[in-house]
């Protein structure tokens, strides 16, 4: 993986991302190692994403590396009309690795073609967010001890949720059974389902959240965003149908864990937070280890 960019989850093979998860386990045991002390990582956030940016920056800082960059395009030369190509080529001169978040889809792929240092895509519009996917795989493997033979439910906005799409595609490399819970207008696109069919795996679709709870090992909750609905009435109709609360988890499997990419709005009731099934805060912390592992692998120090 040395010197390679990670733009889309498909850029790495199954073996490669298992390798990342293994390295991440080492960092979980020992997150502070001075192995990046001669490296500069640029974090270019053309649109704000505080959580993702802090996770990357914390990952670099804990490994002794330095961070340069911006957290908002309005404070950069982009505002003066500089092209993406020029920004990337310039920053590539100042850094060993670029982490970027950009509102346009395909921007990270383009950056990886013009940059002479590797690019990590931290989200390109509605397209890809591969490090979220890696940390989710890490969280699933850590809580279940394996990635094979699991029943995994995805709940909420399955149509536009890029996290769901890349997770489903990545999980088709393992022998999983998928359960999709969403309003009819936000069902998983057929292009993503095709990946499941190609691997001859099973999937089921539901509109009722409670139906799926007793059978699954992982309950992956996502936010239903108001701006996805052209008619606000449609949003009002469904907004409360996919809210998980403590009571609903009665009768769930003993090993069930609830995941969420965060931020949540109200789709997981706060009464779930203290239950042993709630894993979403730990999941966010795992993001630091996974990002450390990824950067260490790409920079060739692990």
């Amino acid at each position, binding site marked *: 993986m040395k010197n390679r960019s990670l733009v*889309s989850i498909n850029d790495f093979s199954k073996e490669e991302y298992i390798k990342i998860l293994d390295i991440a386990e080492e960092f979980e045991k020992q997150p502070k190692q001075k192995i990046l002390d001669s490296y500069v990582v640029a974090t270019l956030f053309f649109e704000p994403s505080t959580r993702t940016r802090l996770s990357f920056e914390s990952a670099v800082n804990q490994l002794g590396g330095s961070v340069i960059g911006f957290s908002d395009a309005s404070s950069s030369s982009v505002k003066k009309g500089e*092209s*993406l*190509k020029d920004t990337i080529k310039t920053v590539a001169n100042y850094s060993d690795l670029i982490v970027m978040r*950009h*509102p*346009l*889809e*395909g*921007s990270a*792929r*383009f950056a990886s073609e013009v940059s002479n240092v590797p690019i990590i895509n931290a989200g*390109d*519009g*509605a*397209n*890809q967010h591969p490090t979220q996917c890696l940390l989710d795989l890490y969280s699933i493997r850590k809580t279940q001890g394996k990635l094979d033979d699991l029943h995994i439910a995805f709940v909420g906005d399955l149509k536009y949720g890029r996290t769901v799409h890349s997770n489903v595609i990545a999980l088709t490399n393992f022998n999983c059974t998928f359960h999709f819970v969403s309003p009819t207008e936000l069902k998983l696109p057929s*292009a993503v389902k095709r990946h499941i069919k190609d691997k001859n795996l099973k999937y089921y679709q539901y509109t009722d959240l409670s139906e799926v709870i007793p059978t699954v090992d992982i309950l992956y909750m996502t936010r239903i965003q108001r701006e996805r609905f052209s008619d606000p009435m449609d949003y009002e109709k469904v907004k409360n149908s996919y809210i998980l609360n403590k009571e609903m988890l009665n009768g769930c499997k003993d090993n069930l864990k609830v995941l969420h990419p965060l931020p949540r709005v109200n789709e997981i009731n706060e009464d779930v937070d203290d239950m042993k099934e709630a894993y979403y805060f730990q999941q966010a912390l795992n993001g630091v280890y996974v990002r450390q592992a990824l950067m260490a692998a790409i920079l060739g120090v692990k």
Partner: protein
Amino acid sequence: MENKDTRKELVVSALENGTVIDHIPPKSVLQVFKILDLEKHMDQVLFGINLESRRLGKKGLIKIKNKFFKIDEINKIALVAPTATLIVIKDFNIIEKKQVEIPDTVENIVKCFNPNCVTNNEAIPTKFTLIDKGELKLLCHYCEKTTAKDNIKFL
């Protein structure tokens, strides 16, 4: 049949050396012109629109003197003119005749359907992979969205 073929060859043979692109859908002739950048060709270029065709009813045709295309170059027109036939002529003789084929990668001809794609917002040439020949589905190399037959626009 025999008679028809002879007549057609006569028309075609009027070119000493060059290329004839036959069986172009009449509406696509000007697009083919643009895709092949024929405005810049320094020698004779003749074209016809709404000519009679047994196969298509009406067809378009372009004759380009002293111009020979590489296969990748000519296949670009398959997106707008899938029925087109390429006829290569040397010393008044037809030396090659073949159907155009949609190429596996389509570069800088088609606009990406996704308004939020980086290629629609920065000066970047578009690039697609053909994922379905029958239905003409093109997967954008950048935003990973599919542009299909119904929403294809040419650059």
